[in-house]
């Protein structure tokens, strides 16, 4: 057993009482099994196919400050950190490290019956419901990182949209990492949109202090029949944030779910996104975009599981890698024997701006049905020299021409967003990022 795994087992054994007494019964209920699975699996080494391109163990070594005894937050997060999208009204909830901040901004805009709140508090309130859904799609037997999160997590966010309810105003979750020293943060999200419900969720991730952060996260999303969910996640942290996130989506018949993971600024990020298409006529849209430079590392691992007939999935991931940045994409499309008439498309395009930048692309298809359409394409290349010269020949200087091309390249992913002010905001963030002007919080001093 490697040291990092052992350290985390020890941490759990030592803190177990404290962890349990500061969380809810349902969440506690899964810990023992999760820890057993974690012991069995151990933190993945690069020998494990899935994590071949990210040295997970390395980032789990060292000492981290925890907040298992739930010291209360004694300041107003919305005053510490504003994350406004211009021209867009959102219901704002805050997660400071792994603590849900009790005040929700513009909560009155939510339709009746919609719940946004602390995961552990809601777990105490809706015991039967949680027993049915919590941890049910985030499997702890297969991935040590999911197991570890399940064993250690105490709180997070719960979003519930009852059936036939359309939430017009986007729900924005602002996740803030803050601390005086190296900090471990375990977060958990549980999202349910019942039959015919519709919701847009925007999750913004920031780090406001210049220390190391290790963040594990698990998000479970349940889409009922004909539900529509757009889940946009933006990471704008810093070079010392190490993030290991797993998102699980379960889709009933005719539901439409988009997960769009946009990494604008980070240290090391490993995003697992899993779709399980369980009802006929469901559509999954799995998108992602990353802009990396210096020694940033980004690994997107996706699985789209077509379990039943007549489902469609569309996947688009784009990377721009500068300096010594490393990108990886593993995209598995699984078409099970019953899943006839599956229509699935996967595209991964990457640009390496330097000779030192690295991109690893692994499209993987496993098809066990015979009447399906599955397309996939992966390319890694450089900026188009012909296009650059064409623009220069019209007077646009080379730097600006490069910027226009890079901007155009990632815009294809941003344009999948169906909220116009958010799209516009992202265009601006991306432009600032490419111009090296993206620094809106204290931690971002690290990114200069």
């Amino acid at each position: 057993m490697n040291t990092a795994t052992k350290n985390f087992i020890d941490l759990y054994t030592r803190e177990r009482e404290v962890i349990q007494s500061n969380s809810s019964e349902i969440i506690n209920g899964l810990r023992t099994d999760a820890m057993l699975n974690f012991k069995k699996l151990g933190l993945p080494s690069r020998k494990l196919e899935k994590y071949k391109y990210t040295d997970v163990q390395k980032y789990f070594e060292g000492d981290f400050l925890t907040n298992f005894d739930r010291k209360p937050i004694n300041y107003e997060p919305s005053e510490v950190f504003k994350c406004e999208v211009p021209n867009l009204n959102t219901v704002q909830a805050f997660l400071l490290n792994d603590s849900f901040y009790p005040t929700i901004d513009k909560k009155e805009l939510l339709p009746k019956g919609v719940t946004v709140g602390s995961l552990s508090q809601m777990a105490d309130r809706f015991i039967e419901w949680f027993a049915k859904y919590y941890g049910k799609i985030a499997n702890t037997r297969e991935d040590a990182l999911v197991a570890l999160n399940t064993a250690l997590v105490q709180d997070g966010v719960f979003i519930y949209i009852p059936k036939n309810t359309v939430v017009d105003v986007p729900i924005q979750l602002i996740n803030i990492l803050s601390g005086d020293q190296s900090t471990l943060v375990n977060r958990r999200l549980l999202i349910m949109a019942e039959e015919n419900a519709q919701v847009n969720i925007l999750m913004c991730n920031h780090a406001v202090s210049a220390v190391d952060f290790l963040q594990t996260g698990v998000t479970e999303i349940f889409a009922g029949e004909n539900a529509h969910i757009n889940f946009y996640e933006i990471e704008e942290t810093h070079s010392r944030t190490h993030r290991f996130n797993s998102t699980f989506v379960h889709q009933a018949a005719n539901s439409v779910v988009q997960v769009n993971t946009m990494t604008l600024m980070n240290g090391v990020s490993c995003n697992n996104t899993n779709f399980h298409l369980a009802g006929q006529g469901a559509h999954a849209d799995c998108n992602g975009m990353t802009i990396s430079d210096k020694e940033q590392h980004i690994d997107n691992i996706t699985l789209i599981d077509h379990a039943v007939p007549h489902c469609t999935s569309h996947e688009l991931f784009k990377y721009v890698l500068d300096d010594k940045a490393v990108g990886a994409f593993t995209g598995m499309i699984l078409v099970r024997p019953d899943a006839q008439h599956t229509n699935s498309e996967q595209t991964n395009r990457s640009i390496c701006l330097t000779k030192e930048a690295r991109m690893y692309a692994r499209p993987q298809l496993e098809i066990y049905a015979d009447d399906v359409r599955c397309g996939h394409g992966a390319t890694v290349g450089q900026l188009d020299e012909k296009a650059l010269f064409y623009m220069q020949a019209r007077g646009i200087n080379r730097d600006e021409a490069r910027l226009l091309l890079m901007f155009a390249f990632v815009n294809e992913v941003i344009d999948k967003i169906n909220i116009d002010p958010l799209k516009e905001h992202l265009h601006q963030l991306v432009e600032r990022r490419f111009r090296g002007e993206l620094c809106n919080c204290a931690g971002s001093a690290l990114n200069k």
Partner: protein
Amino acid sequence: MLKIKDLHANVDGHEILKGINLEIKKGETHAIMGPNGSGKSTLGNVLVGNPNYEVTQGSVEYLGKNLLELDPEARSCEGLFLSFQYPVEIPGVSMTKFMRAALNQHRTYKGLEPLSASDFLKLVKEKREMVKLDSKLLSRSVNEGFSGGEKKRNEIFQMAVLEPTLAIMDETDSGLDIDALRIVADGVNQLSSPERSQIIITHYQRLLDYIKPDFVHVLLGGRIVKSGGPELALELESRGYDWIKQEGGK
């Protein structure tokens, strides 16, 4: 305006231009004709600084400056323009964004303020009408999905916006039907002035019916082997290039 002296240039290590000498004065229109592979397009690309073409010898003076020392973007801002034979498609960059970036860089170069959005749109509308370019094309990506004729018209539109001092048309007539040819030629003619010069690279006399050259040069094997007035183009049209080859390119 432009003085080319003993210009030699390579593409992929092969010498294509083998000593070009050419002088163009203010207000003049020069036609450069010649068979395939004689170096016509190479000359155009070398003048605008295409990095795939390597100048090995000779000099080019443009408005008193050493042209070969300037970046392609500076050449453009100094008023040089090439209408490309094969315009490049740039997916994701809209025509409007592209032209606005180009025009504003030209203005910055000249020490002018960038044009406001409304003034820019006014200018674009005026120039677009000049070459009868469909307004829908301006919201699309640069040249993406444009027909051959639309691409050529788009080149002339860009020229109209940037108002170059020296415009080089590289086979702008190829792939155009008669109507499109007339529109393109009209656009070019409207832009000509005593202060501006043009180089028309073409295979055929056809375009020269619409754009009257002052001089016609025959490029053969990387050299200008014969120069004359507009009548030379007519002679080439009826006799082909063989008789010039037989004259030995003297």
